[in-house]
């Protein structure tokens, strides 16, 4: 279906940059609508993050009235395959029960200026799946509806303005004369597209948007029919695993594959050359590929391999050294990246200075579906089927490995068994292409859990210090955050050292512009561990640090932690916000949320000894969240989370069921990570290997008393996927302090509480 539409769009792309949609009749006789070379009311061409530009999208009305909506974005569990079609269906005015959704492949068109998007920008990261398509998808639906109305009006010889619609029908003179959409598709397909986008619905008239809708693929998931990357089966497909260097940046010295080749089903074994240390990469590690007739034969073959590894330049990398270096660094002066007001002067005049350090560890993504990719590289084509957050990244990786032009590379997306940022990188796509290119076979590359834990783009670890000067009334006069960390900007081409901080400190975060004398200072610390984006990247670290410190500051100056937050955040006002999620940040929206969760959990009620409540709130990528945790800590340091109140202000909840799901899931992700997750390195090797030493939260750790609240604010939706995570860890550790008096300044919590309580 996509190829058919693509051809239509390509045919018209050169017709100029007029504002039009492209309509035509599909092979099956349906009415098909592509959108626009350029979307309405926007800059003519918008640059995506990876250089592609926006071109098209489509819907189809079948002769039997069924509506098929193409979903152009990767579904990683966030609900994008449901919410984007909801927008189209709303404006098209059809019954939601009549809608089915198909996954569109990556659509790229080559133009004189480079590659442009055929189906609109494709890729999910930064909680933008909905927001970047909110206007666009509604315009698609509204335009299709408009064409159907025009077709009906022309048939009846009346002005279009005298017609309207009800779900699935154009209604002209009287409801009795309603014409089903499917009877109008042939006429509608012949009409020229309107110059301007028709008016969008008033939100008061929404029948689908903002209402409770179930996940569109739920039945496929509960019956085992949903297909993930791991489930790909293609003709003549072989299976591959790779033994990767256990040493960060290590390489293969020699291979003895004599036993491995004897394993039944093993077909081929060969070395995969890794990237040069420190240089930009397509794959993560050097290794040895084992290709076999089944996954198990490949795994067994790999076990029988003897590889002599050259430990390489990072052989002495060690977590203990890394943390010692961070501590040393903070004793000196770093790069001052933000310096507002007169920090030194204000600090010197402070009545009291409060200072604490916090440690945030490296963590790994660990989606339930390990990395995998199907690749079939032929002489002049390449087919990729991948669970990915970045199909265009997959295309670029495959192009780099095969040398083929990107228009010869087909990228199909499966449902994805979890993203969390791991699948923004496409190293596993490049590996699959390498194996297929080498063997000439269609290859399903499979990673095991151990591969996934030891070869990741980890969330950066860092040692943070916050120092605040307060006056005699406890008012904060000056504030500095100093961070020594391994920047997320890992092996980026053209990345100067003095920009590395930009991945770790988002300067416009609270409390900048609220505390006048404000300074941020950064120290980069090199380590061989690859780093990448982990759900809400640096916000997870900074929210923990800032929201923990606020509690400490309150306690040490005799203030109430809730009241201090309210005093600092203040009322509604828009502050400029230059980082992702801007252009503004309204701290009053955090005030509203933190007061709300505090009320819900009866914050003011005194608890018995051993029981306490903690709060935290944070602004992430345009959205606002707050948490209240109530916990008990036994005298032996056993922690029980008794109750959680979570609240999100995502502007306007377009798909409330999914917002609630993300709020629940994001909260549990935050708990899981805070409780026990840490990646450590010894002798240049990652020490964790599976869920026994890299634990994910289990159901018993999550209380039944769990409330997820959505507080709408206006009619503009923000993203949702990452927003709930950052406040979780500090709300939890603040609650632990309230219950036990033990302040945890290092994540994960692990056995720290038991040790502190029994010391």
């Amino acid at each position, binding site marked *: 279906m996509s190829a058919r539409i693509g051809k239509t769009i390509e045919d018209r792309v050169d017709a100029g940059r007029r504002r039009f949609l492209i309509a035509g009749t599909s092979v099956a006789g349906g009415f098909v609508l592509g959108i626009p070379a350029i979307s309405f009311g926007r800059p003519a061409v918008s640059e995506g993050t990876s250089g592609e530009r926006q071109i098209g999208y489509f819907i189809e009305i079948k002769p039997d009235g069924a509506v098929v909506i193409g979903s152009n974005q990767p579904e990683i569990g966030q609900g994008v395959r449901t919410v984007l079609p909801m927008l189209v269906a709303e404006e098209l005015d059809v019954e939601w029960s009549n809608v089915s959704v198909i996954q569109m492949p990556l659509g790229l068109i080559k133009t004189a200026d480079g590659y442009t998007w055929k189906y609109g920008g494709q890729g999910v990261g930064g909680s933008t799946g909905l927001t970047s398509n909110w206007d666009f998808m509604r315009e698609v639906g509204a335009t299709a509806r408009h064409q159907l109305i025009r077709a009906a009006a022309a048939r009846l010889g009346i002005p279009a303005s005298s017609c309207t619609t009800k779900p699935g029908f154009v209604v002209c003179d009287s409801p009795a004369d309603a014409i089903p959409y499917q009877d109008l598709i042939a006429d509608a397909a012949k009409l020229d597209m309107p110059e301007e986008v028709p008016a969008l619905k008033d939100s008061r008239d929404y029948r689908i948007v903002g209402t409770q809708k179930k996940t569109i693929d739920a*039945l496929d998931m509960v019956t085992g029919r949903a297909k993930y990357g791991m489930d790909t089966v293609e003709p003549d497909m072989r299976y591959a695993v790779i033994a990767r260097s256990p040493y960060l940046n290590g390489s293969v010295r020699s291979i003895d594959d004599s036993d491995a080749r004897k394993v039944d089903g093993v077909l081929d074994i060969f070395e995969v050359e890794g990237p040069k240390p420190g240089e930009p990469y397509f794959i993560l590690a050097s290794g040895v590929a084992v290709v076999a007739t089944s996954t198990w034969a490949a795994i067994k073959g790999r076990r029988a391999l003897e590889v002599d590894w050259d430990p390489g330049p990072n052989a002495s990398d060690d977590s203990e050294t890394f943390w010692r270096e961070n501590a040393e660094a903070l004793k000196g002066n770093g790069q001052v990246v933000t310096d507002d007001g007169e920090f030194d002067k204000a600090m010197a005049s402070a009545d009291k200075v409060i200072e604490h350090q916090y440690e945030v560890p490296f963590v790994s993504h660990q989606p339930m579906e390990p990395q995998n990719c199907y690749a079939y590289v032929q002489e002049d084509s390449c087919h990729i089927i991948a669970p990915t957050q970045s199909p265009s990244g997959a295309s670029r990786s495959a192009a780099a490995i095969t040398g083929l032009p990107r228009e010869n590379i087909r990228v199909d997306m499966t*449902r994805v068994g*979890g993203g969390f940022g791991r699948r923004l990188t496409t190293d596993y796509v490049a590996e699959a292409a390498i194996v297929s290119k080498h063997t000439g076979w269609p290859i399903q590359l499979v990673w095991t859990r151990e591969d996934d834990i030891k070869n990741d783009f980890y969330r950066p670890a860092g040692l943070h210090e916050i120092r605040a000067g307060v006056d005699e009334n406890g008012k904060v006069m000056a504030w500095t955050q100093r961070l020594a960390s391994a920047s997320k900007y890992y092996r980026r081409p053209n990345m100067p050292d003095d920009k590395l901080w930009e991945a770790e400190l988002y300067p416009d975060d609270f409390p900048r512009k609220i505390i006048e004398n404000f300074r941020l200072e950064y120290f980069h610390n090199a380590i061989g561990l690859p780093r990448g984006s982990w759900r809400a990247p640096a916000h997870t670290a900074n929210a923990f640090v800032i929201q923990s410190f606020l509690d400490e500051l309150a306690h040490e100056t005799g203030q109430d932690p809730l009241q201090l937050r309210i005093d600092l955040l203040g009322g509604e006002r828009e502050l400029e916000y230059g980082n992702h999620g801007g252009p503004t940040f309204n701290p009053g929206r955090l005030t509203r949320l933190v007061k709300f969760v505090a009320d819900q959990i009866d914050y003011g009620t005194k608890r018995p000894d051993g029981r306490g409540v903690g709060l935290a709130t944070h602004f992430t990528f345009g959205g606002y969240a707050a948490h209240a945790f109530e916990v008990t800590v036994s005298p032996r340091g056993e922690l029980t989370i008794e109750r959680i109140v979570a609240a999100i202000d995502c502007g306007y909840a377009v798909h409330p069921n999914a917002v609630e799901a993300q709020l629940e*899931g994001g909260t549990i992700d935050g708990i899981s990570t805070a409780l026990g997750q840490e990646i450590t390195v010894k002798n240049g090797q990652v020490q964790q290997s599976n869920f026994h030493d890299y634990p994910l939260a289990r159901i018993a750790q999550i209380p039944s008393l769990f409330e997820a609240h959505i507080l709408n604010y206006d009619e503009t939706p923000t993203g949702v996927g990452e927003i709930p995570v950052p406040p979780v860890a500090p709300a939890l550790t603040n609650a632990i302090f309230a219950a036990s008096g033990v302040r945890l300044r290092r994540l994960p919590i692990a056995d720290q509480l038991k040790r502190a309580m029994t010391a």
Partner: protein
Amino acid sequence: MISFKVNNESASFEGDTDTPLLWVLRDHLNLTGTKFSCGVGLCGACVVHVDGRAVASCRVPVSSAEGRAVTTIEGLAATDDDLDPVQQAWLEHDVAQCGYCQSGQIMAAVDFLNRYPNPTDEDIDNNMSSMVCRCGTYVRIRKAIHRAAELKRAES
């Protein structure tokens, strides 16, 4: 050769008898609803029923299924109109996010409810904590299990 039943049909496997049941189901019988995740029995994504009891299929060799009846997620309901109460409850509470672990969660919950027809939260916590959901659907899983118990009671 190993002979067994899968979803009420005869199946056989002629490869290495130490091949985990998981890979026989997925690669040889094309029953991909059963998922591979940790490979060592720590997460439950691969749970199937062997003679009606939940088993982590990544941990048992296919030889252990000799002469037994294996049920996978594909065989849990004959048709979409006749879903297991657990599947129905999962739909009612819209449990799944990414969905990858849910086949195993559902198979584990079916076995659990056979043993605990009137479960408490504590029963759920004690019996379902061998399972992992990275998306964090536990709040809905707990509600859906209670709902499934209710549906089963209404059936009987």
